[in-house]
């Protein structure tokens, strides 16, 4: 198979020119999206540019400890982003969410590489970084939704939660309906994606592999594998993060603590 055709900077710039067409149309419609769109475009360009340089360096060195450090940094940033977006206290939850992601995402990535891909070196940056990144990205979204739904659900329906306790439920039984709702909301998008993948759109990883010169069948096998890994990783991380966080979120009398939220 042939190598991927490189894109020159000049040719890439054509798309930056073309983007003015939708921007002009948006401007004509009187939306105030222009400023946000331009700001996001700038951020995307700078972020990906920097990551491009960094990954080039990381791929070249391909050092065990540097690669693992990058994974740890990704886990840390994901844990921080999760508590912030789920409106939870960083001090109380970052350590447990880090642990949940480490087991859920880190464990699934390790299994994927060691048992499925089986490259010559297990820490090869070419596999470790993108695979961990893909599983982590999906887990991040699912964890934000699950934690936010779970804790805001109990807070918004505090009366119902306390009624369960008064009717003889232990803490696990009283949180169960809120846990089920959080799991449904967070995992449904991935379940829906699995059901329609390939029919509605060709997924990014598969497209990327085919552009990179892989035969469609290899690309599809990778895509199936990554979808399974994403579902396994995010489900594990979501369940573990909910279970781990519950331990520090309630008083000994099973009442939700006020100080677990970022904005009380």
């Amino acid at each position, binding site marked *: 198979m042939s190598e991927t055709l490189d894109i020159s900077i000049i040719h890439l710039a054509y798309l930056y020119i073309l983007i003015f067409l939708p921007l002009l149309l948006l401007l004509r419609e009187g939306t105030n999206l222009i400023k946000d769109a331009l700001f996001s475009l700038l951020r995307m360009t700078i972020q990906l540019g920097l990551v491009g340089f960094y990954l080039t360096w990381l791929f070249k060195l391909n050092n065990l400890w540097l690669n693992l450090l990058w994974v740890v940094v990704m886990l840390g940033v994901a844990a921080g982003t999760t508590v912030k977006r789920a409106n939870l206290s960083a001090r109380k939850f970052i350590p447990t969410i880090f642990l949940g992601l480490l087991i859920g995402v880190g464990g699934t990535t390790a299994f994927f590489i060691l048992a499925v891909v089986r490259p010559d070196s297990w820490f090869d940056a070419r596999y470790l970084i993108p695979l961990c990144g893909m599983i982590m990205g999906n887990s991040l979204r699912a964890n934000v939704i699950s934690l936010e739904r779970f804790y805001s659900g109990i807070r918004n*329906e505090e009366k*119902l939660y306390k*009624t369960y306790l*008064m*009717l003889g439920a232990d803490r696990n039984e009283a949180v169960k309906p809120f846990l089920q709702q959080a799991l449904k909301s967070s995992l449904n998008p991935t379940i829906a994606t699995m059901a329609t993948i390939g029919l509605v759109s060709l997924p990014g990883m598969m497209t990327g592999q085919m552009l990179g010169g892989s035969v469609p069948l290899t690309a599809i096998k990778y895509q199936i594998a990554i979808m399974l890994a994403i579902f396994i990783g995010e489900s594990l991380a979501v369940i573990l993060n909910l279970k781990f966080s519950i331990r520090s979120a309630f008083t000994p009398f099973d009442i939700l603590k006020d100080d677990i939220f970022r904005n009380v």
Partner: protein
Amino acid sequence: MIEFKALSLNLNNKIILENCNTVFKEGDKIVITGDSGSGKTTILNLIMGLAEADEGSIFFRGSKLSSENISEIRKSIAYIGQEPALGGTTVAEALDLPFKFKSNRGAEPDEKNITGILNFLLLDKDIREKNINSISGGEKQRIAIARALLLGKRIFLADEITSALDNTVIKQLYSLFSTEEYSLISVSHDPAWISFCSRRLNLKDGALTEVKP
């Protein structure tokens, strides 16, 4: 039955209780009165372990309220608020809900028991088919009371329950709670309810004082 020992609680820089010592005896019919916002409902929450005191202790039948015994204590107590949260989708599901929990398994009531209690509370047995969002606040209160009776609870904490109930239902409650086996700790502004209760405690500026009839 329930004893407050040197109990103090501040909420949002407001004194709710200050060094309070009170005993609620088995079979007592108590009403707590006081201005709105004085913390009457908080006292009920303290008894149920749903609020925690800053200082002092609460004893239930001689045992100090703790994380070890709070589930057992909650099992003995029924709380009926102004607009109870019932859970479930239909009234039947709401009535059945507590029997799904481990601690109540095996204690499921039979049909005769259910219809008997619904009749006593002047509820049509067909109400069980209704969606809980379609029934009135007063009906919700009666379902909550029915559920507590089905669970065999004997200690009732009632928070302003007469506001949504009509007189015929209130009379039924008087006949229920006047028996010795039921203990009642209530919060009310209703003069008729206050005169029904055998003890009245007034809460003012953190002090819970006995009001002699």
